[in-house]
Protein backbone atom coordinates (compact mmCIF):
# COMPACT_ATOMS: atom_id res chain seq x y z
CA UNK A 1 0.00 0.00 0.00
CA UNK A 2 1.75 3.14 -1.07
CA UNK A 3 0.48 6.63 -1.40
CA UNK A 4 2.45 7.89 -4.30
CA UNK A 5 2.87 5.04 -6.69
CA UNK A 6 3.58 7.22 -9.70
CA UNK A 7 6.26 9.35 -8.09
CA UNK A 8 8.95 7.81 -10.33
CA UNK A 9 7.25 8.95 -13.51
CA UNK A 10 6.51 12.38 -12.18
CA UNK A 11 10.04 13.19 -11.11
CA UNK A 12 11.51 11.89 -14.34
CA UNK A 13 9.03 14.01 -16.28
CA UNK A 14 10.75 17.10 -14.95
CA UNK A 15 14.00 16.01 -16.54
CA UNK A 16 12.75 14.91 -19.91
CA UNK A 17 11.11 17.00 -22.58
CA UNK A 18 7.37 16.66 -23.07
CA UNK A 19 6.45 14.00 -25.60
CA UNK A 20 4.08 16.23 -27.51
CA UNK A 21 5.04 16.77 -31.13
CA UNK A 22 3.97 20.26 -32.01
CA UNK A 23 2.40 19.29 -35.28
CA UNK A 24 2.51 22.02 -37.84
CA UNK A 25 6.02 22.98 -36.79
CA UNK A 26 7.44 19.49 -36.36
CA UNK A 27 6.47 16.82 -38.81
CA UNK A 28 7.49 13.24 -38.40
CA UNK A 29 8.59 11.20 -41.36
CA UNK A 30 5.70 9.12 -42.61
CA UNK A 31 6.00 5.35 -42.72
CA UNK A 32 6.42 3.71 -46.07
CA UNK A 33 3.06 2.00 -46.11
CA UNK A 34 0.99 5.04 -45.21
CA UNK A 35 -2.20 5.16 -47.24
CA UNK A 36 -2.54 8.67 -48.58
CA UNK A 37 -4.17 9.82 -51.75
CA UNK A 38 -4.57 7.42 -54.67
CA UNK A 39 -2.35 7.59 -57.75
CA UNK A 40 -3.08 5.87 -61.05
CA UNK A 41 -0.70 4.89 -63.81
CA UNK A 42 -2.64 4.85 -67.08
CA UNK A 43 0.05 3.01 -69.02
CA UNK A 44 -0.70 -0.39 -67.57
CA UNK A 45 -4.48 -0.16 -67.28
CA UNK A 46 -6.50 -2.64 -69.30
CA UNK A 47 -9.89 -1.29 -68.34
CA UNK A 48 -11.21 -4.26 -66.35
CA UNK A 49 -12.89 -1.92 -63.87
CA UNK A 50 -12.39 -4.18 -60.86
CA UNK A 51 -11.16 -1.22 -58.86
CA UNK A 52 -14.43 0.61 -59.40
CA UNK A 53 -16.52 -2.51 -58.69
CA UNK A 54 -14.70 -3.35 -55.47
CA UNK A 55 -14.54 0.10 -53.98
CA UNK A 56 -16.77 0.13 -50.88
CA UNK A 57 -17.42 3.83 -51.10
CA UNK A 58 -17.96 4.30 -54.84
CA UNK A 59 -15.00 6.61 -55.06
CA UNK A 60 -13.62 5.39 -58.38
CA UNK A 61 -15.25 5.79 -61.78
CA UNK A 62 -13.45 4.40 -64.81
CA UNK A 63 -14.54 6.32 -67.88
CA UNK A 64 -13.88 4.37 -71.07
CA UNK A 65 -13.17 6.60 -74.05
CA UNK A 66 -11.91 3.88 -76.34
CA UNK A 67 -11.41 0.38 -75.00
CA UNK A 68 -9.38 -0.94 -77.93
CA UNK A 69 -6.99 2.01 -77.92
CA UNK A 70 -6.75 1.81 -74.12
CA UNK A 71 -7.89 5.36 -73.57
CA UNK A 72 -9.30 5.57 -70.07
CA UNK A 73 -9.86 8.34 -67.59
CA UNK A 74 -10.12 7.61 -63.89
CA UNK A 75 -12.32 9.92 -61.90
CA UNK A 76 -11.37 9.68 -58.25
CA UNK A 77 -13.63 11.15 -55.56
CA UNK A 78 -11.17 11.69 -52.76
CA UNK A 79 -13.95 12.92 -50.51
CA UNK A 80 -15.67 9.52 -50.69
CA UNK A 81 -12.51 7.49 -50.42
CA UNK A 82 -11.97 5.59 -47.16
CA UNK A 83 -8.29 4.89 -47.90
CA UNK A 84 -8.78 1.16 -47.47
CA UNK A 85 -6.49 0.23 -50.42
CA UNK A 86 -8.84 -2.48 -51.70
CA UNK A 87 -8.50 -1.05 -55.21
CA UNK A 88 -4.73 -1.32 -55.01
CA UNK A 89 -5.07 -5.02 -54.31
CA UNK A 90 -7.89 -5.66 -56.78
CA UNK A 91 -5.89 -4.29 -59.69
CA UNK A 92 -3.88 -7.11 -61.21
CA UNK A 93 -1.76 -4.82 -63.36
CA UNK A 94 -0.39 -2.75 -60.43
CA UNK A 95 -1.74 0.50 -61.83
CA UNK A 96 -2.83 1.91 -58.51
CA UNK A 97 -0.81 2.98 -55.51
CA UNK A 98 -1.41 5.09 -52.45
CA UNK A 99 0.98 7.91 -51.82
CA UNK A 100 2.78 8.16 -48.53
CA UNK A 101 3.63 11.83 -48.73
CA UNK A 102 0.32 13.34 -49.80
CA UNK A 103 -1.77 12.82 -46.75
CA UNK A 104 -2.70 16.33 -45.67
CA UNK A 105 -5.82 16.52 -47.73
CA UNK A 106 -7.95 19.11 -45.97
CA UNK A 107 -9.35 21.78 -48.29
CA UNK A 108 -11.80 24.62 -47.93
CA UNK A 109 -13.78 23.93 -51.09
CA UNK A 110 -15.22 20.67 -52.24
CA UNK A 111 -14.45 21.11 -55.92
CA UNK A 112 -10.78 20.33 -55.49
CA UNK A 113 -11.56 16.91 -54.10
CA UNK A 114 -12.52 15.24 -57.37
CA UNK A 115 -9.42 14.25 -59.35
CA UNK A 116 -9.25 13.12 -62.94
CA UNK A 117 -6.32 10.93 -63.91
CA UNK A 118 -5.31 10.10 -67.48
CA UNK A 119 -3.65 11.42 -70.63
CA UNK A 120 -4.08 15.18 -70.95
CA UNK A 121 -6.28 15.20 -74.01
CA UNK A 122 -8.47 12.44 -72.62
CA UNK A 123 -9.06 14.31 -69.41
CA UNK A 124 -9.87 17.48 -71.30
CA UNK A 125 -12.41 15.60 -73.35
CA UNK A 126 -14.10 14.25 -70.25
CA UNK A 127 -14.12 17.59 -68.52
CA UNK A 128 -15.67 19.20 -71.57
CA UNK A 129 -18.72 17.10 -70.87
CA UNK A 130 -18.53 14.71 -73.75
CA UNK A 131 -20.94 12.08 -72.52
CA UNK A 132 -20.94 9.60 -75.36
CA UNK A 133 -18.61 7.18 -73.64
CA UNK A 134 -19.38 4.44 -71.08
CA UNK A 135 -18.22 4.51 -67.58
CA UNK A 136 -17.86 1.72 -65.10
Amino acid at each position, binding site marked *: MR*FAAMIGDITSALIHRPVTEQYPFERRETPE*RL*RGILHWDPEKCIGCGLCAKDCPAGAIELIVLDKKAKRFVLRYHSDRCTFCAQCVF*SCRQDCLSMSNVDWELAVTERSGLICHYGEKKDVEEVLAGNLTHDSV
Partner: protein
Amino acid sequence: MEEHKTAQSFTVPIGPQHPALKEPSHFRITVDGEIVKDAYVRLGYAHRGIEKATESRTWTQNLYMLERICGICSHIHGMTYCLAVERLAQVQVSARAQAIRVLFAELERIHSHMLWFGVTAHEAGFDTLFMYSWRDRETVMDILEELSGNRVNYSANILGGVKFDVDESRVESILDGINFLEERTHYYLEVVSTDALFLQRTHEIGTMNRREAEVLGTVGPTARASGVNRDIRIEAPYAAYDQFPIQITLDDSGDLKARVLVRLRELFESYRVIRQILKNLPSGDLTVRMPRRIQQGETVLRVEAPRGELFYFIRSNGSDTPDRIKVRTPTICNMMSVIKLAVGHQLADVPMILAGIDPCFSCNDRMVMINQSNKTSHRWRWEELRQHGINYYQQRTA
Protein backbone atom coordinates in the same frame (compact mmCIF):
# COMPACT_ATOMS: atom_id res chain seq x y z
CA MET B 1 -35.13 21.28 -16.55
CA GLU B 2 -37.62 19.88 -14.15
CA GLU B 3 -36.56 17.99 -11.17
CA HIS B 4 -37.96 14.55 -10.65
CA LYS B 5 -38.50 13.87 -7.03
CA THR B 6 -40.33 10.91 -5.67
CA ALA B 7 -40.18 10.85 -1.92
CA GLN B 8 -36.48 11.31 -1.19
CA SER B 9 -34.94 10.14 -4.46
CA PHE B 10 -34.37 11.65 -7.84
CA THR B 11 -33.08 10.51 -11.18
CA VAL B 12 -29.76 11.50 -12.61
CA PRO B 13 -29.39 11.05 -16.35
CA ILE B 14 -26.00 9.85 -17.47
CA GLY B 15 -25.96 10.41 -21.20
CA PRO B 16 -26.57 10.69 -24.03
CA GLN B 17 -24.32 13.71 -23.55
CA HIS B 18 -21.98 13.21 -20.65
CA PRO B 19 -18.25 13.50 -20.11
CA ALA B 20 -18.15 10.02 -18.62
CA LEU B 21 -19.33 8.40 -21.82
CA LYS B 22 -17.17 8.22 -24.87
CA GLU B 23 -20.17 7.29 -27.00
CA PRO B 24 -23.83 8.10 -26.55
CA SER B 25 -26.11 5.95 -24.47
CA HIS B 26 -28.58 6.72 -21.76
CA PHE B 27 -28.51 5.53 -18.17
CA ARG B 28 -31.24 6.67 -15.86
CA ILE B 29 -29.92 6.34 -12.32
CA THR B 30 -32.31 6.88 -9.44
CA VAL B 31 -30.40 8.04 -6.39
CA ASP B 32 -31.25 8.67 -2.79
CA GLY B 33 -28.58 11.10 -1.64
CA GLU B 34 -25.56 9.36 -3.08
CA ILE B 35 -26.75 5.76 -3.03
CA VAL B 36 -28.12 4.32 -6.24
CA LYS B 37 -31.55 2.82 -5.90
CA ASP B 38 -32.36 1.86 -9.45
CA ALA B 39 -30.75 1.91 -12.87
CA TYR B 40 -32.19 1.75 -16.35
CA VAL B 41 -30.36 1.69 -19.64
CA ARG B 42 -31.49 2.75 -23.07
CA LEU B 43 -29.26 2.07 -26.02
CA GLY B 44 -29.58 2.67 -29.71
CA TYR B 45 -28.04 6.08 -30.18
CA ALA B 46 -25.30 4.82 -32.47
CA HIS B 47 -27.43 2.54 -34.66
CA ARG B 48 -26.50 3.00 -38.30
CA GLY B 49 -28.26 0.14 -40.06
CA ILE B 50 -25.05 -1.62 -41.01
CA GLU B 51 -26.53 -5.12 -41.06
CA LYS B 52 -29.18 -4.04 -43.53
CA ALA B 53 -26.69 -2.13 -45.63
CA THR B 54 -24.53 -5.22 -46.05
CA GLU B 55 -27.33 -6.91 -47.95
CA SER B 56 -26.95 -4.56 -50.90
CA ARG B 57 -23.17 -4.59 -51.24
CA THR B 58 -20.82 -7.17 -52.64
CA TRP B 59 -18.77 -9.48 -50.48
CA THR B 60 -15.63 -7.42 -50.96
CA GLN B 61 -17.31 -4.15 -50.17
CA ASN B 62 -18.89 -5.59 -47.04
CA LEU B 63 -15.51 -6.26 -45.51
CA TYR B 64 -14.91 -2.54 -45.16
CA MET B 65 -18.46 -1.86 -44.06
CA LEU B 66 -18.22 -4.33 -41.20
CA GLU B 67 -14.80 -3.12 -40.21
CA ARG B 68 -16.34 0.20 -39.40
CA ILE B 69 -18.82 -1.14 -36.88
CA CYS B 70 -16.26 -0.21 -34.28
CA GLY B 71 -13.09 1.81 -34.35
CA ILE B 72 -11.11 -0.05 -31.76
CA CYS B 73 -12.10 -3.60 -32.67
CA SER B 74 -12.18 -3.02 -36.41
CA HIS B 75 -9.60 -5.68 -37.31
CA ILE B 76 -11.36 -8.44 -35.42
CA HIS B 77 -14.67 -7.70 -37.14
CA GLY B 78 -12.94 -7.83 -40.51
CA MET B 79 -11.07 -10.98 -39.61
CA THR B 80 -14.20 -12.80 -38.43
CA TYR B 81 -16.04 -11.87 -41.59
CA CYS B 82 -13.18 -13.12 -43.75
CA LEU B 83 -12.88 -16.37 -41.82
CA ALA B 84 -16.62 -17.00 -42.09
CA VAL B 85 -16.82 -16.23 -45.81
CA GLU B 86 -13.74 -18.34 -46.52
CA ARG B 87 -15.41 -21.16 -44.66
CA LEU B 88 -18.55 -20.77 -46.76
CA ALA B 89 -16.57 -20.70 -49.98
CA GLN B 90 -14.45 -23.63 -48.74
CA VAL B 91 -11.23 -21.81 -49.50
CA GLN B 92 -8.09 -22.64 -47.57
CA VAL B 93 -6.02 -19.59 -46.65
CA SER B 94 -2.25 -19.96 -46.27
CA ALA B 95 -0.71 -20.40 -42.85
CA ARG B 96 1.31 -17.23 -43.22
CA ALA B 97 -1.79 -15.14 -43.79
CA GLN B 98 -3.51 -16.64 -40.76
CA ALA B 99 -0.46 -15.96 -38.61
CA ILE B 100 -0.31 -12.35 -39.75
CA ARG B 101 -4.02 -12.01 -38.99
CA VAL B 102 -3.38 -13.24 -35.46
CA LEU B 103 -0.45 -10.84 -35.14
CA PHE B 104 -2.68 -7.92 -36.02
CA ALA B 105 -5.40 -9.21 -33.71
CA GLU B 106 -3.04 -9.36 -30.76
CA LEU B 107 -1.61 -5.93 -31.52
CA GLU B 108 -5.17 -4.65 -31.62
CA ARG B 109 -5.85 -6.25 -28.27
CA ILE B 110 -2.88 -4.39 -26.82
CA HIS B 111 -4.13 -1.17 -28.36
CA SER B 112 -7.63 -1.68 -27.02
CA HIS B 113 -6.54 -2.59 -23.49
CA MET B 114 -4.18 0.37 -23.22
CA LEU B 115 -6.93 2.71 -24.36
CA TRP B 116 -9.34 1.20 -21.90
CA PHE B 117 -6.82 1.48 -19.09
CA GLY B 118 -6.37 5.19 -19.67
CA VAL B 119 -10.10 5.75 -19.81
CA THR B 120 -10.66 3.89 -16.54
CA ALA B 121 -7.97 5.94 -14.84
CA HIS B 122 -9.64 9.09 -16.12
CA GLU B 123 -13.03 8.00 -14.79
CA ALA B 124 -11.44 7.44 -11.41
CA GLY B 125 -9.95 10.92 -11.46
CA PHE B 126 -6.37 9.71 -11.82
CA ASP B 127 -5.41 11.90 -14.75
CA THR B 128 -1.69 11.27 -14.48
CA LEU B 129 -2.12 7.56 -15.14
CA PHE B 130 -4.44 8.41 -18.02
CA MET B 131 -1.84 10.61 -19.68
CA TYR B 132 1.00 8.18 -19.23
CA SER B 133 -0.85 5.11 -20.43
CA TRP B 134 -2.04 6.95 -23.53
CA ARG B 135 1.48 8.09 -24.18
CA ASP B 136 2.53 4.47 -24.20
CA ARG B 137 -0.36 3.54 -26.43
CA GLU B 138 1.29 5.67 -29.11
CA THR B 139 4.01 3.01 -29.35
CA VAL B 140 1.61 0.30 -30.41
CA MET B 141 -0.13 2.66 -32.79
CA ASP B 142 3.23 3.44 -34.38
CA ILE B 143 3.90 -0.27 -34.82
CA LEU B 144 0.53 -0.70 -36.48
CA GLU B 145 1.11 2.28 -38.71
CA GLU B 146 4.42 0.85 -39.86
CA LEU B 147 2.84 -2.47 -40.63
CA SER B 148 -0.37 -1.36 -42.24
CA GLY B 149 -0.33 2.34 -42.94
CA ASN B 150 -3.03 3.47 -40.59
CA ARG B 151 -3.18 3.88 -36.82
CA VAL B 152 -6.79 2.81 -36.36
CA ASN B 153 -8.90 0.84 -38.88
CA TYR B 154 -5.90 -1.00 -40.26
CA SER B 155 -7.78 -2.75 -43.13
CA ALA B 156 -5.24 -5.53 -43.09
CA ASN B 157 -7.67 -8.24 -44.10
CA ILE B 158 -8.74 -9.10 -47.59
CA LEU B 159 -10.99 -11.97 -48.63
CA GLY B 160 -8.52 -14.77 -49.06
CA GLY B 161 -5.65 -13.49 -46.95
CA VAL B 162 -3.97 -10.32 -45.78
CA LYS B 163 -2.75 -7.28 -47.63
CA PHE B 164 0.48 -6.58 -45.79
CA ASP B 165 3.48 -8.71 -45.20
CA VAL B 166 5.75 -8.70 -42.17
CA ASP B 167 9.27 -8.73 -43.51
CA GLU B 168 12.54 -9.06 -41.65
CA SER B 169 13.32 -5.35 -41.62
CA ARG B 170 10.25 -4.53 -39.59
CA VAL B 171 10.58 -7.32 -37.04
CA GLU B 172 13.30 -5.48 -35.13
CA SER B 173 11.26 -2.33 -34.57
CA ILE B 174 8.19 -4.32 -33.57
CA LEU B 175 10.18 -6.22 -30.97
CA ASP B 176 11.66 -2.99 -29.59
CA GLY B 177 8.20 -1.56 -29.21
CA ILE B 178 6.91 -4.70 -27.52
CA ASN B 179 9.82 -4.70 -25.06
CA PHE B 180 9.12 -1.11 -24.10
CA LEU B 181 5.42 -1.84 -23.65
CA GLU B 182 6.12 -4.88 -21.52
CA GLU B 183 8.29 -2.89 -19.16
CA ARG B 184 5.61 -0.20 -18.86
CA THR B 185 2.90 -2.82 -18.30
CA HIS B 186 4.84 -4.20 -15.34
CA TYR B 187 5.00 -0.70 -13.95
CA TYR B 188 1.27 -0.10 -14.41
CA LEU B 189 0.47 -3.43 -12.80
CA GLU B 190 2.44 -2.33 -9.79
CA VAL B 191 0.75 1.09 -9.67
CA VAL B 192 -2.70 -0.43 -9.87
CA SER B 193 -2.01 -3.01 -7.19
CA THR B 194 -0.31 -0.76 -4.67
CA ASP B 195 -1.56 2.78 -5.01
CA ALA B 196 -3.72 3.23 -1.93
CA LEU B 197 -6.16 5.78 -3.29
CA PHE B 198 -6.72 4.00 -6.60
CA LEU B 199 -7.34 0.82 -4.68
CA GLN B 200 -9.94 2.64 -2.65
CA ARG B 201 -11.79 3.35 -5.86
CA THR B 202 -11.54 -0.15 -7.27
CA HIS B 203 -11.25 -2.65 -4.44
CA GLU B 204 -14.52 -4.43 -3.64
CA ILE B 205 -16.55 -2.28 -5.96
CA GLY B 206 -18.89 -3.93 -8.42
CA THR B 207 -18.25 -7.38 -7.04
CA MET B 208 -19.81 -10.15 -9.05
CA ASN B 209 -19.28 -13.74 -8.04
CA ARG B 210 -18.92 -16.58 -10.51
CA ARG B 211 -22.52 -17.71 -10.39
CA GLU B 212 -23.82 -14.19 -11.02
CA ALA B 213 -21.39 -13.72 -13.89
CA GLU B 214 -22.64 -16.87 -15.54
CA VAL B 215 -26.31 -16.10 -15.00
CA LEU B 216 -26.01 -12.55 -16.31
CA GLY B 217 -24.22 -13.85 -19.39
CA THR B 218 -21.06 -11.80 -19.15
CA VAL B 219 -18.24 -12.58 -21.55
CA GLY B 220 -14.63 -11.70 -22.03
CA PRO B 221 -12.31 -10.23 -19.41
CA THR B 222 -15.31 -9.12 -17.33
CA ALA B 223 -16.31 -12.77 -16.88
CA ARG B 224 -12.76 -14.01 -16.49
CA ALA B 225 -12.27 -11.58 -13.61
CA SER B 226 -15.04 -13.43 -11.78
CA GLY B 227 -13.48 -16.80 -12.34
CA VAL B 228 -15.49 -17.92 -15.38
CA ASN B 229 -13.10 -20.06 -17.38
CA ARG B 230 -14.05 -18.97 -20.90
CA ASP B 231 -11.78 -17.85 -23.71
CA ILE B 232 -12.72 -18.58 -27.30
CA ARG B 233 -9.10 -18.60 -28.36
CA ILE B 234 -8.61 -21.66 -26.17
CA GLU B 235 -12.00 -23.36 -26.47
CA ALA B 236 -12.48 -23.06 -30.21
CA PRO B 237 -9.22 -21.90 -31.78
CA TYR B 238 -9.58 -20.06 -35.05
CA ALA B 239 -7.04 -18.61 -37.49
CA ALA B 240 -3.57 -19.50 -36.21
CA TYR B 241 -4.40 -19.97 -32.53
CA ASP B 242 -3.85 -23.71 -32.58
CA GLN B 243 -0.27 -23.13 -33.67
CA PHE B 244 0.29 -20.27 -31.21
CA PRO B 245 -1.85 -21.12 -28.20
CA ILE B 246 -2.89 -18.76 -25.43
CA GLN B 247 -2.96 -19.40 -21.69
CA ILE B 248 -6.01 -18.19 -19.88
CA THR B 249 -5.87 -15.30 -17.40
CA LEU B 250 -8.27 -15.68 -14.51
CA ASP B 251 -8.96 -13.92 -11.28
CA ASP B 252 -11.31 -14.89 -8.47
CA SER B 253 -12.29 -11.68 -6.76
CA GLY B 254 -14.76 -10.40 -9.32
CA ASP B 255 -14.48 -6.78 -8.29
CA LEU B 256 -13.31 -3.83 -10.34
CA LYS B 257 -9.70 -4.32 -9.32
CA ALA B 258 -9.82 -7.88 -10.66
CA ARG B 259 -11.07 -6.62 -14.02
CA VAL B 260 -8.19 -4.18 -14.26
CA LEU B 261 -5.68 -6.85 -13.28
CA VAL B 262 -7.07 -9.42 -15.74
CA ARG B 263 -6.83 -7.02 -18.65
CA LEU B 264 -3.30 -5.96 -17.76
CA ARG B 265 -2.20 -9.57 -17.34
CA GLU B 266 -3.73 -10.51 -20.68
CA LEU B 267 -1.32 -8.05 -22.22
CA PHE B 268 1.58 -10.26 -21.19
CA GLU B 269 0.04 -13.17 -23.06
CA SER B 270 -0.30 -10.96 -26.12
CA TYR B 271 3.35 -9.93 -25.93
CA ARG B 272 4.41 -13.55 -25.67
CA VAL B 273 2.32 -14.65 -28.65
CA ILE B 274 3.54 -11.76 -30.78
CA ARG B 275 7.14 -12.64 -30.10
CA GLN B 276 6.42 -16.28 -30.91
CA ILE B 277 4.75 -15.39 -34.19
CA LEU B 278 7.56 -13.10 -35.24
CA LYS B 279 10.09 -15.80 -34.57
CA ASN B 280 8.21 -18.63 -36.27
CA LEU B 281 6.31 -16.97 -39.07
CA PRO B 282 5.28 -19.73 -41.48
CA SER B 283 6.03 -19.25 -45.14
CA GLY B 284 3.43 -19.06 -47.84
CA ASP B 285 1.48 -16.75 -50.06
CA LEU B 286 -0.28 -13.79 -48.69
CA THR B 287 -3.53 -14.19 -50.58
CA VAL B 288 -5.51 -16.94 -52.21
CA ARG B 289 -7.93 -16.43 -55.04
CA MET B 290 -11.54 -16.13 -53.92
CA PRO B 291 -14.57 -16.52 -56.14
CA ARG B 292 -16.79 -13.53 -56.70
CA ARG B 293 -19.94 -15.48 -55.97
CA ILE B 294 -19.96 -17.42 -52.75
CA GLN B 295 -21.91 -20.68 -52.85
CA GLN B 296 -25.13 -21.08 -50.97
CA GLY B 297 -24.96 -21.94 -47.27
CA GLU B 298 -24.88 -20.49 -43.80
CA THR B 299 -22.25 -20.46 -41.11
CA VAL B 300 -21.61 -19.14 -37.65
CA LEU B 301 -18.29 -18.10 -36.18
CA ARG B 302 -17.23 -16.99 -32.70
CA VAL B 303 -14.01 -15.13 -31.96
CA GLU B 304 -12.48 -13.46 -28.93
CA ALA B 305 -12.57 -9.71 -29.44
CA PRO B 306 -10.76 -7.55 -26.87
CA ARG B 307 -14.07 -7.14 -25.07
CA GLY B 308 -15.35 -10.68 -25.17
CA GLU B 309 -17.08 -13.09 -27.46
CA LEU B 310 -17.96 -11.78 -30.90
CA PHE B 311 -20.46 -13.80 -32.89
CA TYR B 312 -21.17 -13.72 -36.63
CA PHE B 313 -23.88 -15.46 -38.63
CA ILE B 314 -23.59 -15.26 -42.40
CA ARG B 315 -26.02 -16.70 -44.93
CA SER B 316 -25.39 -16.73 -48.63
CA ASN B 317 -27.80 -17.47 -51.43
CA GLY B 318 -25.22 -18.00 -54.14
CA SER B 319 -25.08 -14.47 -55.49
CA ASP B 320 -22.41 -11.85 -55.10
CA THR B 321 -24.16 -10.12 -52.20
CA PRO B 322 -24.84 -11.77 -48.87
CA ASP B 323 -28.33 -12.74 -47.87
CA ARG B 324 -28.05 -11.98 -44.17
CA ILE B 325 -25.24 -11.04 -41.84
CA LYS B 326 -25.93 -10.94 -38.15
CA VAL B 327 -23.40 -9.60 -35.68
CA ARG B 328 -23.63 -9.94 -31.93
CA THR B 329 -21.00 -7.98 -30.09
CA PRO B 330 -19.77 -8.60 -26.53
CA THR B 331 -20.76 -5.31 -24.97
CA ILE B 332 -24.44 -6.07 -25.15
CA CYS B 333 -23.85 -9.20 -23.07
CA ASN B 334 -22.01 -7.28 -20.41
CA MET B 335 -24.38 -4.34 -20.25
CA MET B 336 -26.92 -6.00 -18.00
CA SER B 337 -24.28 -6.65 -15.39
CA VAL B 338 -23.74 -2.89 -15.09
CA ILE B 339 -27.42 -2.34 -14.36
CA LYS B 340 -27.50 -5.04 -11.76
CA LEU B 341 -24.24 -4.11 -10.09
CA ALA B 342 -24.88 -0.38 -9.94
CA VAL B 343 -27.72 -0.73 -7.44
CA GLY B 344 -26.45 -0.29 -3.91
CA HIS B 345 -23.24 1.50 -4.85
CA GLN B 346 -22.62 5.20 -4.74
CA LEU B 347 -23.19 7.50 -7.68
CA ALA B 348 -19.46 8.07 -7.99
CA ASP B 349 -18.96 4.35 -8.59
CA VAL B 350 -21.35 4.09 -11.52
CA PRO B 351 -18.99 5.47 -14.18
CA MET B 352 -16.28 3.21 -12.80
CA ILE B 353 -18.48 0.13 -13.00
CA LEU B 354 -19.47 1.09 -16.52
CA ALA B 355 -15.87 1.55 -17.51
CA GLY B 356 -15.04 -1.81 -15.96
CA ILE B 357 -16.86 -3.75 -18.66
CA ASP B 358 -15.03 -1.83 -21.40
CA PRO B 359 -18.16 -0.60 -23.16
CA CYS B 360 -18.12 -0.05 -26.88
CA PHE B 361 -21.46 1.46 -27.68
CA SER B 362 -21.03 1.75 -31.40
CA CYS B 363 -20.65 -2.01 -31.54
CA ASN B 364 -23.68 -2.85 -29.59
CA ASP B 365 -26.65 -1.26 -31.28
CA ARG B 366 -28.68 -3.90 -33.01
CA MET B 367 -32.31 -4.00 -33.86
CA VAL B 368 -34.29 -7.01 -32.75
CA MET B 369 -37.94 -7.35 -33.47
CA ILE B 370 -39.80 -9.80 -31.28
CA ASN B 371 -43.25 -10.62 -32.42
CA GLN B 372 -44.96 -12.44 -29.64
CA SER B 373 -48.53 -12.65 -30.87
CA ASN B 374 -47.79 -15.24 -33.52
CA LYS B 375 -44.66 -17.28 -33.86
CA THR B 376 -43.88 -16.24 -37.43
CA SER B 377 -40.95 -13.96 -38.08
CA HIS B 378 -41.41 -10.89 -40.18
CA ARG B 379 -38.94 -9.33 -42.54
CA TRP B 380 -38.91 -5.60 -42.98
CA ARG B 381 -37.78 -3.74 -46.01
CA TRP B 382 -35.68 -0.63 -45.75
CA GLU B 383 -38.60 1.69 -46.51
CA GLU B 384 -40.79 0.04 -43.87
CA LEU B 385 -38.10 0.46 -41.26
CA ARG B 386 -37.66 4.09 -42.14
CA GLN B 387 -41.38 4.77 -42.05
CA HIS B 388 -41.65 3.06 -38.67
CA GLY B 389 -38.94 5.32 -37.32
CA ILE B 390 -40.66 8.44 -38.63
CA ASN B 391 -44.03 7.40 -37.16
CA TYR B 392 -42.46 6.54 -33.81
CA TYR B 393 -40.87 9.93 -33.36
CA GLN B 394 -43.91 11.79 -34.63
CA GLN B 395 -46.07 10.03 -32.08
CA ARG B 396 -43.64 10.81 -29.30
CA THR B 397 -43.56 14.52 -29.89
CA ALA B 398 -47.29 14.77 -30.70
